[in-house]
């Protein structure tokens, strides 16, 4: 990112775009030990009368936003607080875009912290998650 000193209200965080891969969702199902078939079983989805594309796990959707923030701030150890509201589903094969903008920068005991508005949207579709996050821009010496 540009130097921490350059960051202020209105700074745009470089967005992150990716296509949701159903094979990754199967691995996440195992990591989460989540038996819900809507994340991997297309036949079960059809039986439920749903779109046959599996539904992405909420933690994956959250994780895309956290990845965007970490890359911008300079590391995964920079995320201090993360708050989102779940507003819609993301389906296998969807292209999603994680995006954000700084709304406030302040000095704290830990250092210079940026509060950001963030959202994950399906490209050409609806917002799936929106919220705010605090990231550490510069640690107190």
């Amino acid at each position, binding site marked *: 990112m540009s130097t921490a000193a350059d960051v202020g209200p209105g700074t745009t965080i470089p967005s992150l775009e990716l296509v949701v891969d159903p094979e*990754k969702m199967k*691995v996440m199902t195992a990591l989460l030990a989540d038996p819900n078939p809507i994340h991997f079983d297309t036949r079960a989805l059809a039986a439920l009368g749903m779109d046959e594309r599996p539904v992405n796990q909420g*933690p994956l959707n959250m994780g895309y936003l956290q990845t965007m923030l970490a890359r911008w701030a300079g590391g995964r150890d920079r995320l201090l607080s993360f708050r*989102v*509201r779940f507003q819609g589903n993301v389906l296998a094969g969807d292209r999603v875009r994680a995006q954000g903008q700084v709304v406030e920068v302040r000095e704290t005991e830990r250092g210079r912290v940026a509060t950001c508005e963030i959202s994950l949207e399906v490209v050409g579709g609806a917002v799936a998650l929106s919220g705010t996050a605090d990231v550490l821009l510069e640690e107190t010496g």
Partner: protein
Amino acid sequence: MSDSGYEDRVGREFPGGEYTLAPWRVWLTADVLLDDPWDEVPHPVLAWMAGVAGSGMSWDDLFAWFDATAEDGPMFGEHHTTLHRPLEAGATYQVSGRVVSVVRKVGRRAGTMDVVGYELDLHLAGADGREHVARCYNSIVFPRRRA
């Protein structure tokens, strides 16, 4: 808003337990997110994953506290993670958790629903005692079609 009949669940503690951020979990979690699996700092989403896995409860157990099942279609509502310090690969976290709120709401389209909030804490045992590493708050929305 009205009483849900489940207000007495507020304050109920989860059994709790432990969760180790085994290097293979750290690697695979980054990989499923299309992030760098060789980064030494675990992905922050693992705070929530560790909390859930170490809570001592299955989803079905939690749903049953509110007389619901997966077939009722419970949904994620909100999520909030606070990280007091970064996660560490290989570390074993002590997990505790509790129900913190139950609110009945009636939506014009969605109908009656109970919104249950719970929080999960990760602590690390160290020379200086138990260090609070993270707190994750999550809410689950239970549709109450028969209410």
